[in-house]
């Protein structure tokens, strides 16, 4: 039926008036962006008589304001040396460099901020002492709201980040949230509810090599993530970043994603993803419609090293779980020992990520049929593998593994069959 979907929707086309309207809107936009002040044209001219005395008084007043501004700037420039003094006692290399960056950052702020009638571009006050950051922002008419967070690498009292981020256009009187390090690096001890069903791990830098995690690996990785996340990131902050594309696109297309499809315990799908830019996403999607989505901050290099240490890249992947763990029967015989391992490895040995999920198979009768509890796995000579769950599981799928482009196989007996045959004879 799904194949008829395309034909059924072929007649839906964009009406000409919609197309014209879009084109017109785009042209208007282009015109307005080219001449933004068009709307402020002057339609009349009034000649006023010159008043020299007012000019002189205004000139004196302007000079006084400029002199005051120079004095205030000198005062703040001197104060920007404070962070060095604050770090004078127990300094580490990292702290020293942070302090230097802070001083430099404070100097740069004055140059980076541009003020216009439309508002003020929020300066970058990251890694700056909180009071100094607040002062800098106050100079541009911006208020601050302080939130204290744990941070593994930013010293106590320093700004870890802001919301909105630097560069955003703000209006005078707007409030900027300063996230300030509390100097602690304690874990949040987040409770990720992850079922005991098999978990798959996808690694973006090596998309052809997804893994099925062993329980030990999964536990170790999740425990590392739990102890390393140090702050929950408000969804608004993520949403503010993403605007028109999906969060994951903006966060960088992931790094490690552990996902599971639990039909037994909580009947849910979920994933725990660690992104390159130091964000962890935890998402659960239950079949009853309940969703849970949270973001946390993490130090990316540290978690990357930890995950690599745990994995070792030696495990295979199979979309329907780990056959040797589930138990397999062939022709009514329960497979054990070497045969079970060999058949399990045969299923693991395929590049499943490139396999097509297809709607039907070419052969009439399966070459091999395995059962695993209530699940039936059929292997056909055309390279198709059918996975059927007796409960009518939504994950029921038919995979074509050998001829991924859907072509007819050249030989009658394809490699998957050969491999399984060899495994059964082992």
């Amino acid at each position, binding site marked *: *039926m*799904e*194949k*008829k*979907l*395309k*034909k*059924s*929707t072929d*007649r*839906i*086309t*964009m*009406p000409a008036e*919609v*197309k014209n*309207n*879009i*084109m017109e*809107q*785009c*042209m208007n*936009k*282009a015109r307005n*962006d080219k001449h933004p002040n068009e709307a402020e044209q002057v339609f009349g001219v009034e000649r006023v008589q010159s008043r020299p005395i007012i000019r002189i008084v205004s000139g004196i007043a302007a000079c006084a304001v400029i002199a005051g501004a120079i004095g205030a700037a000198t005062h703040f420039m001197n104060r920007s040396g404070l962070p060095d003094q604050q770090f004078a006692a127990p300094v580490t290399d990292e702290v020293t460099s942070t302090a230097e960056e802070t001083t430099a950052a404070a100097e740069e702020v004055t140059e980076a901020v541009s003020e216009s009638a439309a508002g003020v571009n929020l300066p970058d006050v990251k890694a700056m002492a909180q009071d100094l950051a607040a002062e800098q922002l106050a100079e541009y008419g911006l208020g601050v709201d302080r939130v204290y967070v744990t941070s593994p690498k930013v010293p106590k009292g320093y700004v870890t980040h802001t919301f909105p981020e630097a560069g955003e256009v703000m209006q005078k009187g707007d409030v900027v949230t300063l996230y300030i390090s509390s100097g602690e690096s304690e874990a949040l001890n987040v409770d990720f509810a992850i079922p005991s069903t098999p978990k*798959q791990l*996808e690694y973006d830098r090596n*998309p052809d090599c*997804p893994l099925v995690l062993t329980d030990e690996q999964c536990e170790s990785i999740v425990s590392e993530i739990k102890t390393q996340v140090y702050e929950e990131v408000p969804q608004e902050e993520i949403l503010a970043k993403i605007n*028109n*594309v*999906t*969060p*994951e*696109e903006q966060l960088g*297309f992931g790094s490690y*994603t552990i*996902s599971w*499809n639990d039909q037994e315990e909580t009947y849910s*799908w979920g*994933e725990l993803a660690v992104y390159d830019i130091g964000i962890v996403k935890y998402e659960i*999607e239950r079949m009853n*419609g309940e969703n849970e989505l949270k973001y946390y901050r993490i130090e990316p290099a540290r978690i990357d090293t930890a995950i690599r240490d745990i994995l070792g890249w030696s495990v295979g992947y199979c*979309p329907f779980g780990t056959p040797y763990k589930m138990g397999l029967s062939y022709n009514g015989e329960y497979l054990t020992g070497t045969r079970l391992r060999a058949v399990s490895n045969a299923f693991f040995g395929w590049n499943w*990520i490139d396999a097509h*999920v297809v709607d039907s198979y070419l052969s009439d009768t399966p070459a091999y049929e395995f059962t695993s509890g209530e699940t039936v796995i059929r292997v056909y000579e055309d390279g198709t593998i059918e996975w059927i769950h007796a409960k*009518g599981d*939504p*994950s*029921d*799928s038919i995979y074509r593994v050998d001829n991924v482009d859907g072509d007819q196989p050249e030989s009658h007996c394809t490699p998957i069959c050969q491999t399984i045959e060899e495994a059964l004879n082992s």
Partner: protein
Amino acid sequence: MVSADVIRDALDNYGDAVYKLCLIMLKNHADAADAAQETFITYMDKSPLFTGAEKEKAWLMQVAANKCRDMLRMRSRRNTVSDDILENYAENTEEYGIVEALTELPDKYRIVMILHYIEGYKTEEIAGMIGKTVSAVKMRLSKGRTMLRETYRKEYM
């Protein structure tokens, strides 16, 4: 900002696909037209650079899908009802039933069904577009197929 000519080309090449996605997601001409319009205005604003035509189309589809999702979210807050307008496009009852059944699927299943079965994207490409894992997309397709058949059987047979 991209030129009007670029927008015109994009409209000619991908306007139908974008509008089709919006109409099936929103089931309402006015909303679909708005979502499509916002998609192309976003294209003009952001002026993304693409290495190929397919990338351009994928980007537009992704933005359109997000616009639809925003509108659906807004609609659910305002309790707005959508129109039953898809019959105008069907050639026969069966086609109408199939498309109608598709529009009744929950949003997350509908979007992957449209991208895979109507627009012909592979599961890996869809995963990249909607920011889910390949296994999640496969699961949604599988569940979507089952639900589509059930809905069609129940209501149109």
